[in-house]
């Protein structure tokens, strides 16, 4: 038996196709990007090696990139401080066995599985200045003056592009938290219930502390997802007008494929990866979770 399972040839046959494909397509490109980031290159012919100039330029004379980073942090803040609390609230309500528990859980999750292109096009219609759902609603309840060109105005474009992102993924975090809340054994609550503690109190002092590991996962996902956000912003505003809703993802994409500045764009790509890794580590540190045993 052991001999069969140590068969070197068989191991190679099983592992190599996946390993080679993964290495060549997913891992090596990161190093290529790191190298392209040191070139001044428009994609035609050979680039000139310029060292770390592009990386320094990202911050030295590039207000737009700094703004894009700032915007992505605003999105991360919205996700962590608005989306996650909403998700937590509904996860707890459902986990306590509210009527229609399964139905609502299923419904809340629907936007998560729909493609961002569909969500983006749909929200463009919602924001349509003349016939969109939002302005129609505002006019019908008498807030005529509140109606505006949501995506086309620099003041509102950023928030308008972020709302659909928060809306789409709130159900995802809710489901993660719901599953975690459900997995806490019932006996733990019994003592609290005998003492007459309310739902609110058991949530704050028992459920939420026990949910720390999943909250950490959700915070990580929400922050990383915000830093690398691309799809919905690209569809809704493509970073505009005048870069008001720019995020690093859209800026990188346009720098590479519309301005053909391969070096600069690659430096941005590398920055996004490093930023994501650093923040993952920071979040892990912030949550110094002790191992909880039931």
């Amino acid at each position: 038996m052991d001999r069969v399972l140590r068969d070197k040839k068989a191991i190679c046959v099983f592992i190599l196709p996946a390993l080679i494909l993964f290495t060549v397509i997913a891992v090596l490109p990161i190093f290529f990007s790191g190298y392209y980031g040191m070139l001044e290159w428009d994609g035609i012919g050979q680039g000139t090696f310029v060292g770390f100039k592009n990386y320094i330029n990202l911050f030295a004379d590039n207000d737009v990139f700094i703004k894009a980073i700032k915007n992505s942090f605003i999105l991360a803040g919205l996700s962590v401080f608005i989306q996650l609390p909403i998700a937590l609230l509904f996860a707890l309500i459902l986990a306590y066995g509210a009527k229609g528990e399964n139905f609502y859980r299923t419904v809340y999750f629907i936007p998560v599985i729909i493609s961002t292109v569909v969500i983006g096009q749909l929200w463009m219609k919602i924001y349509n200045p003349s016939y969109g759902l939002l302005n129609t609603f505002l006019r019908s309840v008498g807030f005529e003056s509140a109606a505006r060109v949501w995506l086309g105005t620099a003041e509102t474009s950023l928030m308008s592009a972020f709302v659909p992102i928060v809306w789409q993924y709130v159900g995802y975090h809710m489901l993660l938290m719901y599953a975690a809340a459900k997995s806490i054994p019932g006996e733990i609550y019994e003592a609290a219930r005998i003492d007459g503690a309310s739902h609110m109190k058991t949530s704050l002092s028992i459920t939420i502390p026990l949910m720390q590991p999943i909250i950490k996962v959700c915070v990580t996902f929400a922050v990383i997802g915000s830093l690398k956000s691309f799809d919905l912003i690209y569809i809704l505003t493509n970073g505009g007008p005048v870069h008001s809703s720019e995020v690093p993802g859209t800026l990188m994409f346009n720098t590479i494929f519309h301005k053909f500045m391969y070096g600069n764009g690659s430096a941005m790509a590398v920055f996004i990866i490093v930023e994501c890794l650093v923040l993952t580590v920071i979040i892990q540190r912030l949550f110094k979770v002790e191992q909880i045993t039931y």
Partner: protein
Amino acid sequence: MKEETLKGKLWTVHISKRDSNHKIGRYILSIILALFGFIQLYPLIWLVLFSLKDNSEIFGGNIVGLPEKFLWQNYSSALFNGNVMHYFLNSVIVTFSTIAISGLLACMASYAIARMKWKLSKTVLIFFLLGLMIPIHAALLPLFLILRDLKLLNSYWALIIPYVAFALPMAIFILTGFFQTIPKEMEESACIDGCSIYRTFYAIMLPLVKPAIATISIFTYLSAWNELMFAITFISKQQFKTLTVGIMSLAGQYITEWGPIGAGLVVSTLPTIIIYVLMSDQVQKSLTAGAVKG
């Protein structure tokens, strides 16, 4: 005796008051749950509604209500004039090839990692799992250049190859976990019967991990069907456009006509919704499997 009944009465009053508070609380909760369900669902219902209207109806004021006449021709113009049918077939080809190839490669690799005995198995697993953290941004330009040099841009492979590579980490993560739970005796008896390792893998082990294969297939389906960034970069020819890119062109083509765009959006979401309706629990489990274990 008298005193005791009084006490009893007071107690009952106390309980019934608590019950009615409880009832009001439950009532409010139901309203909140329904309201949130409405927020998550209504935009999608609205999409279906306007996919069946024409411009004169939408611009004439019936933005929110049911269509006066159900305009099914919006669907035929989206499907045929708008090429949605064509994009749809391309998406089917790309997505299902991705599911099949990544499923097979991931099963083979996971089997070698989880069941076979070799020194580097843990290291290789960690290497794959690092892939869960790679944002695709960094691979975008290098892959674009590799595919360009291989003359693979604008082909099905331009999407299938990257999709498979980026689907592997999650698939291997879920599958190795599953393979490890299978008792050793299954292989041992096969080995005694003289099965080769390949036959053991194919005939004995694969059927045992079917539930995990279902999980990763759903996961891979959703990420391939909905993927945008690679698709808009690697595909520009009409002939190979998948739904995500195709919908972007459709929206450009019918910029002022809401009906056909809506119809295109509905059609491209339909398979996802059908899968979700048929197995919502399984879909929810697939999308959270990675997070819950990690």
